[in-house]
Structure formats: C-alpha cells, structure tokens
C-alpha cells in the first residue's frame, strides 16, 4: 500500500485478501515450508523461484512460478496502481483466478 492507496481501503483490503489467499496456498504447503513466498509481484515471485529452486525440482518450481504469475496478472496485482486498477468485483477474473488457484494447490500437493 503506497501513499496513493490511502482513502481507497476497500480496494486495498480486497487486494490484501487475494494476496493472502494465494500466499497461504503456497506457504502452507510442506513443499514450500522453508522458502516462504513474501508477495506476488514479479520480483517477489522471482526471488521465491530462486530460493525454492535450491531444494525443489526445477520443473515443479517453474510450473508453480508460471501459475503464480498468471494469478497475479489475472488479479490485477501486477498492474501499476494507477492506470489499471485492481477490481475485486470482476466476476470473469474471479472465476479464472479460482481455477488457477486450484491448479496451484494441486501442483503443491
């Protein structure tokens, strides 16, 4: 939440909820226990990929990384915070995100 988000907390809270739900899938997995995912920016996902790659098969890490990037993009989390805004009420995006989260959970199971 940068300064630009003060006073727009409904959107910020919705964004937090999405981030938490995705982080929880990854971080509650035994596979990812020692390498917590800290956020859903490209940089944070890249850092997780680097750390996870030391312990986990490269193919698995690549698959999870791709899913995380897709989820972040679909959620609007990768958009800059001005031009393309996070829209918690976009039903089409919500369905796509739900499907991607299910794939993510499966990959980490």
């Amino acid at each position: 939440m940068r300064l630009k988000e003060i006073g727009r907390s409904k959107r910020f809270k919705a964004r937090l909820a999405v981030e938490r739900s995705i982080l929880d899938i990854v971080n509650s997995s035994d596979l990812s226990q020692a390498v917590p995912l800290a956020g859903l920016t490209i940089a944070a996902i890249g850092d997780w990929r680097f750390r996870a790659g030391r312990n986990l098969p490269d193919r698995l890490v690549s698959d999870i990384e791709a899913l995380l990037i897709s989820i972040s993009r679909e959620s609007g989390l990768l958009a800059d915070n001005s031009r393309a805004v996070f829209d918690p009420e976009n039903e089409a995006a919500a369905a796509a995100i739900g499907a991607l989260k299910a794939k993510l959970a499966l990959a980490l199971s």
Partner: protein
Amino acid sequence: MSFDLPSSVVNISIFGSWVRRDNDEHSDLDVLVTVMDGSGKTPDQEIADFVRPLIGGEPSISWYGVNKLRSMFEQGDLFAWHLFLESKSVGPYPELQAIFGRPASYATAQTDIMELHGILREVSVELIKAPRNAVFEMGILYVCARNIAMSASDKLCPTPQFGRYSPFALPIEFPLTADEYDLAMSSRMAGQRGRSPPLIRVGDVEDMQERLMSWSELVLAEVSRVVAP
C-alpha cells in the same frame, strides 16, 4: 515542444524521496505521468527512455488521467498534497502545481487512520489462520504504521511527513525501535521488490502489532483533538 512523446502526455514529474533528497538504496525513483483522459496507452518503455537520461535512473512509473488527478487535488487527497509539496517536473513540462493549483485541505485524516487501524487489527487474525505468512503480515504492519503517520503528520507536524520514517517524526512516541521498524520494512520490501525475506517469528509480529494498535489509537485521539472545531 520539440520532443518525441505523444501530445497526450500532459506532464511528467518525479516525486517523493528523490525530490526530498533523502533517497537511499531502498528508494524507488517515482515518476508520475499525467495524460489526457481517453488518450490510450503510451508504453512505459517510451516514457522510461525519455526520462532516464534526464533523471539518471530507472523510473517506477505511475499513470494518471488529468481528470482523476484534478479531482484528487479538488478533494484534498493526501496524494495530491504529496505531489504539491514533493514533485518536480521533468523536461519541458510545467510543474504540477501550475496545472492543478493548491489542493483543498486534507479532510479525511481521521477516516484514513481508522481504516488503517482496522487493517492493522486484522493482522493478528490473519496470522492465526496462516502463520506461515508471517513475512507478509509483518510487511503490512510497516505499511499501516507509515501511512498512519503520513496521514497524522498533516495535522500534528509543522509540515506533512511523506518519508519512510514518518512515524518517528510525530510528536507521539513511536513504540517500535528503528531496528524493529527496519525489520518490518524489509518484510515489505521482500514482498514488493523481491528482496530476500528476513526471518520473522509469528510472536514478533503479534508483539509489534499490539504496540502499534495502542500507538495508532493515541495518534487518532490526538488528530481528533487537533481537528475538533
């Protein structure tokens, strides 16, 4: 004007730490691009290529339409004050102050602080549900503390404090040490910029959250006292 950017670009300005001159290795080089509404998308790269030689770094670009930004100035949004006080135009563009004037008074400090207090309160609940998200939740503590202080500083300090260490500038003792605050900031940086996550214990997040909750109540009470008619 003799430069290659589309005429829909109304203004390009740097803002924040680079204008305050307190930028460090953690600072973004924040660039605001204001465009005519409905003018379509100019690639970030085109803007970055234009500003990079002028400002000497890699920009982090935010885009705003003229109408949106004008509305924020008219409503006295804190971000408008941030731009009014801490922005500098780049290249041949006029200053934002010349385009939008002086923002209206910032009137939502109490509401903003209460909303941030609510987000702060949720951290302990979320930690119970997902203790392995401790790094993320620690980062939220940082965001809330910093932004509560930014909002309050408009009422409690001689000038608004938009820097990262704004909590330490308030006339109310901040309950975290600099090291604790930096730890929370590092957690946020890990989630946003891909820095290596620090080792965070759930108990530390809970402890810091409790202290920040008490502090934010004091801050809100003081802001309410100052703005009371």
